[in-house]
Each structure stands twice: as structure tokens, then as C-alpha cells.
């Protein structure tokens, strides 16, 4: 789940907003270029964005006895590259921050950085490495999606640890505490998201739809 409104000190809120801004600007430029060069990718992009909309609306129970929601950003990151997910994630987070009191405006920068920047880049990198070492497409897509999901909440934990270091054990101790809340809860959800993403990616790509261009362009295939 996202960091709630007002729960990051002002300096941290401003810092994360500054950190996230270039990714949103760069991602918007990448998005426009993708749509200009490959207008046929429009539908796939809509589907990948819609996937993020669906998954981030589903608060699911986990083994820690609390609830969290998956992110759905891995699919788009693997299909179009991680950059384009920054503006997509921003839209989802704005909707939830403004209308649902979930996340917030002062924490928007930090939440964009974890869900729309860190998650997509980690997921994309994991997928590239997995493909590179010869793992099957299905396993690579699973890893990309699951790690995009999980890393989002590892970064959330780190953001809170930096803002609220433990008086005795410092940032590391505080990180472990917040990771116990966010990241551990996320592990089963990330696995479930990985499995679901394989199914959705297979349905989108099938035997060579236009989604294939995204995967192919990045993996150097067709």
C-alpha cells in the first residue's frame, strides 16, 4: 500500500517529488514517441495500463494478517520498457490519492518513485537478466512481474526507514521493521501477480500480435 497523506516529513516529501519528476517527464516523452512510431501499439499500451488500474484496486489478504494490493506495473515495463510506466503509475496514484484518500499528494512523489519508477525498472531488469541467462519466456515474465511488485514495497519500506530511523538501531533497524509490514505481506501477492501476468501476457501476445513488437524489440527477437 502507498504511504499515507502527511506521513512523510516535508523535506522527504519534497525530495522524493524532485527525484520522481525527471522519470515522469522522460516517461511521457518515451510514451509519446512509442505512440508516434508504433500507433498499432496503442491498444497494447491501453491494456497494460488497464492491468495496473485493475491490480492496484484490489486489496488482497496476505499471510501477515494484513492486506495490500499488487501493482501490475511489470507487464507494461516488459512490453514497452520501464520508462513509460512512470506517467501511467502517476495517473493511478493521482486517482487514488485524490478520490480514495489512498496515498496522497504530499506523498505522491515518494509513491510514484516506488510504484511507477523503482518497480518497473527492477521488474524490467529482472526480466532482461532472466531472458539473458536462457530462462523460458514464461518464467522470465513471471520473475519480471513478481519482482516489480515486490521491489515497489521494498522501496516504500526504505523511504519510511529514511524518514523515521529507529533511535537505537538506526535506518537499518527501521527498514527491517517497515519491510516486515510491507515487503513480507507482499511476497504471496507478488507471486500471485507473477502467475496472473504470465496468463495475461500470453493472451496479449498469443501467436504474434502487435504486443510481440514490444517484447521482441527489447529481447532482440522478431
Amino acid at each position, binding site marked *: 500500500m502507498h504511504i499515507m497523506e*502527511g506521513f512523510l516529513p516535508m523535506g522527504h516529501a519534497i525530495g522524493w517529488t524532485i527525484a520522481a519528476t525527471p522519470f515522469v517527464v522522460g516517461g511521457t516523452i518515451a510514451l509519446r514517441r512509442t505512440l508516434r512510431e508504433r500507433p498499432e501499439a496503442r491498444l497494447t499500451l491501453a491494456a497494460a495500463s488497464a492491468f495496473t*488500474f*485493475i491490480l492496484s484496486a484490489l486489496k488482497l489478504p496476505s499471510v501477515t494478517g*494484513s492486506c495490500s494490493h499488487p501493482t501490475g506495473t511489470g507487464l507494461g515495463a516488459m512490453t514497452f520498457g520501464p520508462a513509460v510506466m512512470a506517467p501511467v503509475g502517476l495517473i493511478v496514484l493521482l486517482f487514488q490519492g485524490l478520490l480514495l484518500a489512498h496515498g496522497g499528494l504530499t506523498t505522491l512523489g515518494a509513491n510514484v518513485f516506488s510504484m511507477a519508477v523503482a518497480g518497473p525498472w527492477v521488474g524490467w531488469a529482472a526480466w532482461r537478466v532472466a531472458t539473458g541467462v536462457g530462462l523460458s519466456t*514464461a518464467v522470465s515474465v513471471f520473475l519480471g512481474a513478481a519482482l516489480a511488485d515486490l521491489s515497489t514495497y521494498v522501496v516504500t519500506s526504505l523511504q*519510511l526507514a529514511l524518514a523515521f530511523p529507529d533511535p537505537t538501531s538506526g535506518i537499518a533497524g527501521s527498514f527491517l521493521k*517497515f519491510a516486515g*509490514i510491507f515487503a513480507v505481506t507482499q511476497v504471496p501477492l507478488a507471486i500471485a501477480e507473477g502467475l496472473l501476468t504470465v496468463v495475461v501476457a500470453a493472451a496479449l501476445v*498469443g*501467436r504474434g500480435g502487435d504486443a510481440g513488437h514490444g517484447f521482441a524489440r527489447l529481447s532482440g527477437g522478431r
Partner: protein
Amino acid sequence: MDLSLTRGRTVALLVAAVAIIVLPLVLPGLEGAFTGTDDVASQAIEAARPGYTRWTMPFWEPPSKEVESTLFALQAAFGAGILGYVLGRRHGSRRRDDDRR
């Protein structure tokens, strides 16, 4: 890029995903209120930093849980509608390709 799943594998993956989500609800001995991790974290911050006061509040909050659940449902429905449309179109165009062959 080749990612095609047999029908059996698709079903197996979906069943596994659902099982992972349902498991915490039916697992005996797992106590929990299933509140959101964001609430848990906020409480942890307030417990660790008794002096910390939230310096901003959301300027609009859904007036009730019911209204909130509607908005979350709308968000999911909007996404599902678009995803379903794209998958359906793609499925249809693939079948036309097959017919032409």
C-alpha cells in the same frame, strides 16, 4: 518472443494465483484483522514517534466505506473493461487470420 500457454497450463496458473490469495483467509491459526499495510505502517510510525503529527490530511475522503468500495470497484471495472476489449479484439483478429489461411 514466444509465449503461448496450453489451456491446461492457463487454468493451472490461474488456480494457483487464486489459491495463494485465498490461503491466508482459510489457514487455521492465522490471526489478523486484515487491515491495510498502510494503516499498520501509520500506527507503527505513531508508536515509534509519539511526537509526530500528520502535517497534511487528504483534502477529500470518501464519506463512508461503502462509497470508497464503489470507487475502488469503478477503478477495477474501468481497467477490466479496457483489458477485456483489447483481448477480445486481438482474439477476433487472430481468428480472422486463421480463417484466411
